[in-house]
């Protein structure tokens, strides 16, 4: 057991620093994906409740496709397909090949999936706000922007936060799939360490514990955020 703990040491003889760099990349990827996914999800939700049937159809097709595809397949399709597409376009003007960054393609793939699911959550949250709220604010002379900012948005956050929190936890776990396109996230670093040390059970357990710790820390933060969002609600 002492030997195993020794393997976690920092520096040349231990593997702790390798795991830490992987964990850091996992966090960076998840944090970078979140705003992109949320923004796109928000746009999708607005499109899906618009009055224009064309816009609704366009958003629905997007959501149906990326909600139904396995995340692993989406990542590979974006990684390979986006590269093909960009180079098809680039070759019109130059002969050089344009290398698509793995981080960006992973971010785009996970962001698209996250957006499809968060559009559902945001749509539900928008539906939960009674129409009378907006009507009352407008009839009191608030502008559309002010109504949105001070009446709709705070309630939207309150209704959407639990669902979006779950999606964040899902996103953290999905980043593990990015190891298939050879991006050195936590799981891929663990694979490398296991290859060198031949201690799969120990190191995969450690990795699982690191993921669990991320989930635990997120739940604490999300719990605080939910209490903050609900501060005006009567118990």
């Amino acid at each position, binding site marked *: 057991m002492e030997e195993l703990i020794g393997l976690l040491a920092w520096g040349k003889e231990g593997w702790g620093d390798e795991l830490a760099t992987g964990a850091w990349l996992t966090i960076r990827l998840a944090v970078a994906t979140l705003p992109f996914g949320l923004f796109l999800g928000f746009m999708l939700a607005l*499109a899906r409740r*618009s*009055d*224009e*049937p*064309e*816009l*609704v*159809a*366009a958003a629905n*097709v*997007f959501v*149906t*496709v990326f*909600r*139904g*595809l*396995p*995340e*692993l*397949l989406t990542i*590979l*399709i974006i990684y*390979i*397909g986006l590269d*093909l597409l960009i180079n098809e376009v680039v070759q019109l003007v130059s002969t050089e090949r344009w290398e698509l960054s793995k981080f960006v393609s992973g971010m785009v793939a996970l962001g698209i999936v996250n957006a499809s699911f968060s559009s559902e959550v945001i749509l539900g949250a928008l539906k939960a706000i009674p129409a009378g709220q907006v009507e009352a604010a407008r009839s009191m002379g608030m502008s559309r922007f002010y109504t949105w900012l001070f009446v709709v948005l705070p309630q939207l956050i309150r209704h959407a936060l639990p669902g979006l929190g779950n999606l964040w*936890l899902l996103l953290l*776990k*999905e*980043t*593990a*799939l990015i*190891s*298939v396109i050879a991006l050195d996230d936590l*799981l891929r670093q*663990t*694979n490398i360490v*296991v290859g060198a040390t*031949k*201690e*799969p*059970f120990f190191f*995969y*357990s450690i*990795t*699982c514990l690191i*993921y*669990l710790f991320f*989930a*635990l820390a997120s739940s604490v933060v999300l719990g605080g955020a939910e209490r903050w969002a609900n501060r005006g609600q009567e118990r």
Partner: protein
Amino acid sequence: MSTVDVAVVEKPKAETSRAWTAGRVIGICVLALYVLIAYFLLRMIVVNYDPEFVGKYLPRMVGGLWITVQLCTTAIILGALIAFPMSLARTHHNPVIRGLSFGYVYFFRGTPLLAQAFLVYYGAGQFRPVLQDMGLWGFFRDAYNCALFTFTLNTAAYQAEILRGAISNVHKGQWEGAHALGLGKVVTYIKIILPQAFITALRPFGNEIIFLIKGSAVASIITVFDLMGETKLAYSRSYDFQVYLWAAIMYLAMVEALRRCWDKLEARLTRHLKRTED
């Protein structure tokens, strides 16, 4: 007859000119983009059509699809068998049982499925002598069994949580009412609480099946030749992007079909709860 025809022709069109709002323009542009992408993808399939290629890889991928279906169905059924006692253990009065079941559910819901699969598949290899002594090595040697084992434990944790939530959602008055009628605990549980809990659990349970189908693609990484595994194999041999499109279509068809069937099933099972007119 002719009068009817005239009447139809003279009927004024409801909307002759809809306003060109920004939303409509964007919607049409995006739809046009879809058509463009679909055109290029279809062209890719048609231009690169090679009967030999299709004959070689398509049957293999359909075989992979069958493995995926088998894997998911077995895992869902076995998982349900574990989930039921697990959901009871989650609300057990003994804190040790409650704590253990909580740890189990938290672990499997909090870590990536892929990491769990690695833990089982490569971890089992490390304990080979022990497993051989127990006579279990034959089971864990096969990647398919490792995937099945992982998926079963994973979906059991999710299903247990769904079931626990659904059971605790049943109104307390149902217990009291049954008790007042002199029904025993077991009878109340089976005849009154569970049927109502199952209806609440129906939708999340459907979502869980879809999640497992999508998640089962990670089996390909631990060398199971499911649909995803066959697809990756075909791509690594041919470098032809269209195999991924076939796989995407197959997965989408599977998930959408299940989702629609589930909606129908839910509408059927909850028809007594719907108000006829709103």
